[in-house]
């Protein structure tokens, strides 16, 4: 097992991730290194699932930033656009028109490229090697908890 996977599994077993599991904030679905699928719980909305699965790409973790795409865990495939979360700021973070393979948040590897100003504008969101995967998961959880979250695209249309 390479150091990045070893560190990731150590973080999964540690307090911050496990406390989130116990709170019902997120759960691990699978690991096929360098990928891991983790579901983040979403508030109840009409005709929308109660969790959003993310497939992380974690090469070089934690020195390298994670990146994640919305995932259909049952089909083990990218989440169809019609099922992407939507609403207010949620639509900025989950924006298939920008990139279907990443989330638009400051700690996502693909989102940060070209948005380096985020590092100084929003240092609390920035990734560094002392972070663990819960940093990314908390940001997604908190965005989904915002009142503007409206469920998924096909129901909201």
């Amino acid at each position: 097992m390479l150091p990045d996977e070893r560190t990731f599994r150590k973080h999964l077993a540690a307090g911050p991730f496990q406390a989130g599991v116990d709170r019902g904030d997120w759960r691990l679905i699978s690991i096929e290194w360098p990928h891991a699928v983790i579901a983040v719980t979403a508030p109840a909305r009409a005709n929308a699932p109660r969790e959003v699965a993310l497939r992380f790409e974690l090469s070089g973790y934690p020195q390298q930033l994670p990146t994640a795409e919305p995932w259909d865990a049952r089909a083990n495939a990218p989440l169809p656009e019609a099922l992407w979360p939507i609403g207010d700021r949620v639509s900025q973070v989950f924006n298939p028109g920008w990139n279907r393979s990443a989330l638009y948040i400051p700690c996502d590897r693909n989102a940060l490229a070209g948005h380096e100003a985020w590092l100084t504008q929003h240092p609390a969101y920035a990734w560094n090697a002392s972070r663990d995967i819960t940093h990314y998961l908390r940001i997604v959880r908190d965005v989904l908890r915002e009142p503007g979250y409206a469920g998924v695209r096909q129901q909201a249309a």
Partner: protein
Amino acid sequence: MEIFVHTRGKDVELQQPEPTATVKEFAESAGHPDAHVFLEGEDEPARPDVSLADAGIGDRANVHIGPCMKVTVSVRYNQQTKTYEVPPAAALQSIYVRASSQGEGFGLSDADRAQYTLQVQGANEQPDLSRHVGVFANDDCAAAFDLVLQDRFQG
């Protein structure tokens, strides 16, 4: 057995004490031999001479280990400050509820309550509200927060 341990200045840790350990032995094994052990939500510390089970500390319980019996929490908003005295194992969520309430807080509207949070005074840290207030206490068992809008990045 596994227990979530909250201590000053650190993120939550998952520790594996022996189920038969006493509260005092558990505190010692966690590196805090003279500290109090509080079960989350409890006003009084666990008795040191009883087992974890007898203290009501079950598998995957959240406890705070630290020197404070109470924490004096001040919350500042609109140039006013309100102060609450709480046990160190009180979750920040309970402080936020009180500080934003109509009764003993600043009376935020429902809409504002969804957009505000606690920020550590003198820092840009907006901690997860599941963390214990004792994590942020200083040597005088005091913790200070501002009631602020949540930091929201934009594209």
